[in-house]
């Protein structure tokens, strides 16, 4: 059995006195799609952000591809890494945000080429060629020279996915990628994610799209108040859950 892509053991996180994560155990195997669901404030986005160390973990152990992201282990101690070292480890982890966070002063193409050129050391010509292919892959080949403000929300989110893919990540994190979109634009973004999953990308997706989780997810994880309430096959967890809490949530969103 190879090392899992993501392994969380007793991950804890608090903001001031508020315990946001109270010991999360979770494993995502290679090539799997793991969907995190739960009410707002349940800690699912915080956990996702812990995976690439945008939030610092306060306790427990969190590894990506067998490697700690924000720390170096020596004996029983976890030494915090310098920003430079954290940045190097984040290169392999793509992230897509709820609010897209495209760089507004750059065109779609420049958004996608920025990191490969400035971080990956690719030549500008190569990065452009690859970026054009990625934009075509997400159906936006003809929008390469548009600025984000000239694109619809759905188009912006697809550029954001292309931007993350440009670093050839081994893991993709999605933080409610369709929550800020008009309903009619959600489908385009989900189609891109579906294709990505079919191509074998390992994905952790925080989402409210129950249908997507059921159809594409290999595991569904239901979280509430900083703990994992229930996890397993989405066709069981999201159809016939064991826990009362999960059932109550599903009855509200469906």
């Amino acid at each position, binding site marked *: 059995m190879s090392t899992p892509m993501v392994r969380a053991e007793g991950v804890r996180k608090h903001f001031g006195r508020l315990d946001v994560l109270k010991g999360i155990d979770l494993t995502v195997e290679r090539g799997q799609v793991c969907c995190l669901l739960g009410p707002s404030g349940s800690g699912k986005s915080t956990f996702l952000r812990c995976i690439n160390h945008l939030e610092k973990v306060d306790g427990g152990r969190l590894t990506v591809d067998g490697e700690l992201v924000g720390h170096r282990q020596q004996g029983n101690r976890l030494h915090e890494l310098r920003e430079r070292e954290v940045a190097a480890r984040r290169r392999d982890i793509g*992230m897509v945000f709820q609010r897209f*966070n495209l760089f*507004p*002063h750059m065109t779609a193409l420049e958004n996608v080429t920025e*990191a490969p050129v400035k971080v*990956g050391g690719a030549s500008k010509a190569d990065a452009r060629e690859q970026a054009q292919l990625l934009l075509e892959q997400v159906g936006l080949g003809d929008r390469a020279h548009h600025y984000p403000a000239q694109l619809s929300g759905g188009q912006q989110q697809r550029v954001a996915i292309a931007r*993350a893919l440009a*670093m050839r990540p081994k893991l993709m994190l999605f933080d409610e990628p369709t929550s800020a979109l008009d309903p009619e634009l959600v489908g385009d973004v989900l189609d891109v994610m579906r294709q990505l999953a079919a191509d074998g990308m390992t994905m952790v997706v925080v989402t409210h799209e129950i249908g997507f989780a059921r159809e594409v997810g290999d595991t569904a994880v239901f979280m509430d108040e900083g703990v994992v309430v229930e996890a397993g096959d989405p066709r069981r967890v999201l159809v016939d859950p064991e826990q009362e809490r999960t059932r109550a949530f599903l009855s509200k969103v469906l």
Partner: protein
Amino acid sequence: MIDTTSPAARATGGATSTPELEIVPVRNHGRWIAAVASLLALVGLIGSLAKNDNLRWDVVGDYLFADLIFDGLATTLWLTAAAMVLGLALGTLIAVMRLSSSPVLYGLANAFVWVFRGTPLLVQIIFWGYAAALYKYVKIGIPFTDVTFFQAETNALLTPAIAALLALGLNEAAYASEIVRAGIQSVDPGQAEAAHSLGMRPALTMRRIVLPQAMRVIIPPMGNETINMLKMTALVSVISAHDLMSNIQDVYAQNYQVIPMLVVASIWYLALVTLLGVPQAWLERRYGRGTTRAGHASPFRRLLGGTTERLGKKNKERNR
């Protein structure tokens, strides 16, 4: 007045069968009276100035392009440029210090701004001009020991020009730091997060992602600061730094033509301030990329594009 309403009115009038109604704009009698009165006042003022023999236009003409004035202009210009560069560089550093999580750096930056923004610029200029009265020698070495790497007389180092540059630059840094800090804080934190998630280091993120976006907020007030700086250089005449104003004062101290010489100074300051608007407009356009849905055309083309678009629209309405 060009009637902009009737083509549209005619178009709709043609489409439906409602009778064509004429729209009568409100008549602003008060506005007309105010316009006439203020124009009369202006004509009166210009007339009285033209008839006033004390305003010696011949003296203005003699000195407007005098060598002495050009020498002063050169000093004013390099002093403005150097003080702004010093102020912006130091100001950015202080802004970053104020955003730092280290309480020491934050406190030091705050203290700097407190002192240099809290005392009059005139005081600071005179202070630097007379700093030799405080320290006769400038020494660089290890504090509290006799080890010295560098030593010089203060008066030799702090020429009036250098003292003026220090005074203006340090004062500017205090104001610039506030502007830069506001600019940096105006950028959505999600931008830095997105950059970090792509593996960009903090310094690279600041340079490539945050600062270019902050510039949009920073440039307009910094343009103001530059214009202010150009005029504030006149204050360094108190330590005779040989800027435009110092030289003007030297002249009228001899020929007593105070008002004509001030007119010469004003003409040059006005001309320079007007010229400064050009690079500012260019910078605003450069850093405004991606902010409008219409893309980015030059101000000139936007003007042309705007009219042709409006004309086109009118034609379309007419053709309907």
